[in-house]
């Protein structure tokens, strides 16, 4: 009769012991979460993000960790599915007790994940989302280490106009991609008007869908309207298709777009076609912390089995590196303990530190955040041609004179 009860008490004791052990281990580590798309259509970005974060984790721990505690970065794959990104945040914040979360990557995922961040009261910061207003709608816990496309376009378009003497443009965009569609239907048309550039297909928007192979009809149509230049609003992997078709049809005109265009892949699509786009980081960037970052990360990326052999660190790798570095700095300077009982306080400390962040040393220059939760940081208007990006204009996503610029 007594034996089952005995068994239970032994089990109970073991459980208590386990909790105690776990507790003491947890006190020595500070956990930071990350949500990246390691499978699905953006697998490459998620996988290189993962390598970047593992590198950073090692760096931080080699340098003594966070106030004596070890840094642990817990990375979850969202398979490029918004619902999985949101449940990943719940897992990281609820089960893994992280002090802050880096990611998710896409705007679609950020739209469903940021509200969860507010519900759970934990910082979530996207490394790539640039669809206007996504963080703004989910204050105070949502942040993005990116600049809103409407701010970037204010520097990109005047440079584009001046350099190529543009008076008319045709606009083409990816209608299925929320960011690209917003840029193509709202931001760019307004910006063209502000700069006195006529849109030849103003009443007749030209679009294609993510995954479309054939855009010959759209390009033929643009060619027949004979504009001075082309606004191409799409993610670079889709933009490649349009650029190739332009090249095939001999429609060689300067192209302008948003940050989504920045990648080394796009330069191979049609090297003779000049491409103008803004970026906060690119692999061949010189000066500051960027070059050592690339030098350290690139060989690691190229060694990784699931990644192509000639891969370069992307802007999203730089952004997520900065995000977790900011969290580490916040944890160090605001006295995050990593103890389970301090979790809520720790999370608030990280957020408050970010809000007041001043002059954080990012890879491309100092970083702070505006009231919308978007980054104030230096950016560059790049021109890509003949296989390389070159910086043409340096800008900053805030009023001139701000310390971050």
């Amino acid at each position, binding site marked *: 009769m007594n034996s089952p009860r005995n068994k239970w008490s032994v089990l109970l004791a073991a459980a208590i012991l386990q909790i105690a052990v776990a507790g003491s281990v947890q006190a020595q580590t500070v956990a930071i979460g990350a949500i990246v798309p390691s499978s699905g259509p953006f697998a490459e970005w998620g996988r290189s993000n993962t390598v970047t974060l593992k590198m950073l984790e090692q760096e931080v721990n080699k340098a003594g960790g966070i106030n004596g505690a070890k840094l642990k970065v817990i990375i979850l794959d969202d398979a490029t599915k918004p619902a999985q990104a949101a449940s990943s945040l719940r897992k990281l914040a609820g089960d893994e007790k992280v002090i802050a979360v880096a990611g998710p990557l896409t705007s679609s995922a950020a739209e469903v994940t940021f509200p969860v961040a507010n519900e759970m009261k934990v910082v979530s910061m996207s490394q790539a989302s640039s669809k206007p207003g996504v963080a703004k709608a989910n204050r105070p816990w949502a942040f993005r280490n990116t600049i809103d496309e409407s701010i970037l376009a204010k520097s990109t378009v005047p440079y584009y106009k001046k350099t190529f003497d543009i008076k008319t443009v045709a606009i083409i965009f990816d209608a299925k991609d929320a960011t690209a569609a917003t840029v193509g239907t709202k931001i760019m048309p307004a910006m063209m008007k502000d700069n006195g550039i006529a849109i030849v297909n103003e009443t007749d928007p030209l679009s294609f869908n993510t995954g479309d192979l054939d855009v010959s009809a759209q390009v033929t149509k643009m060619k027949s309207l004979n504009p001075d230049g082309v606004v191409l609003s799409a993610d670079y992997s889709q933009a490649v298709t349009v650029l190739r078709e332009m090249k*095939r049809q001999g429609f060689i005109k300067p192209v302008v777009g948003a940050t989504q265009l920045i990648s080394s892949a796009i330069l191979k699509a049609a090297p003779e076609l000049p491409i103008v786009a803004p970026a906060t980081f690119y692999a061949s960037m010189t000066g500051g912390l960027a070059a050592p970052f690339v030098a350290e990360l690139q060989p690691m990326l190229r060694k990784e089995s699931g990644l192509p052999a000639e891969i370069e660190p992307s802007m999203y790798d730089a952004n997520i590196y900065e995000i977790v570095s900011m969290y580490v700095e916040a944890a160090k300077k605001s006295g995050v303990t990593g103890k389970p009982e301090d979790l809520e306080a720790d999370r608030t400390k990280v957020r408050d530190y970010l809000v007041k962040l001043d002059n954080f040393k990012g890879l491309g220059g100092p970083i702070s955040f505006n009231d919308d939760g978007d980054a104030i940081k230096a950016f560059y208007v790049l021109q890509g041609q003949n296989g390389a990006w070159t910086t043409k204009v340096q800008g900053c996503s805030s009023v001139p004179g701000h310390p971050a610029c």
Partner: protein
Amino acid sequence: MLLQQLVNGVTLGAVYTLLALSFSIVMGILGILNLAIAELFMIGGYLGFAVITAHLSLPVAVAAGMAGAAAISAVIEKIGYEPLRDAPLVTPMLSTLGFSIILQNIATNMWGSDPLQLPDEFLGGRIALGPVSIGELQLIVIGVTIVLVAVMAYIVQRTSMGRALRAVAENRDVARLLGVSGSRITLTAFMMSGALAGAAGVLIAIHYAAITPYVGVEIGLKAIAVMVIGGTSRIWGALLAGPLIGIAEVLTVAYGGSQIRDFVVYGFMIAILLFRPQGLLGGSGADQGQRV
């Protein structure tokens, strides 16, 4: 511009034709939708890429794409279809979906998720015909498509294998009584279907010069629409329906409707199903659709 757009439409249509034919061989004989065809197309494209960048000729690339895709298709038939032959049609359809997920994953892990691009030197020249400019590769795409459709039509209508295929399509049990091995014919049908998808993949990859692991998804759904419009049991139907849809798409874009393009294509497909269920060229119709 109109003439140029028609050329664009016909090229796109040629690719639809090949893929639609690939769907309809399995569909016409076995009545199942092989959802992995879109991925066989994708794998064919990557194989073609590999051959072309190794500086081998286009025919070799097409052959490699066809052989590779046919081999994978055979595996799909053996594992995913044959054991489920007697199950309701929806079951083997979902097992082919499993293969499509696996193939996408393999391609992502092997070649990355970013577009793989063909170097400039392989882009090919252009021929100007008055106001219209046609790429050499466009002509090749259209030419190879016509040849392949003709070969398929010949095989299905004139050879003993074709007769066996049609017999199994008509009635598997009766065919067996007549000494036709159902399982062998099924395997043949899957391999022929795979080879066509592979050929389409190579042509597309080289013509558009960029490919990703997800390249087959959208075009695969469109090809299903083309198959329906052409009629699932008529080889030549696909040759008519492919360019028809290609041109319909291109003209929708040209005359201001690029955003409603998919709406038009699928609307057209539903209209055909409702009002001419046997497809444009006739043949056995939707009223005989097998049970799911």
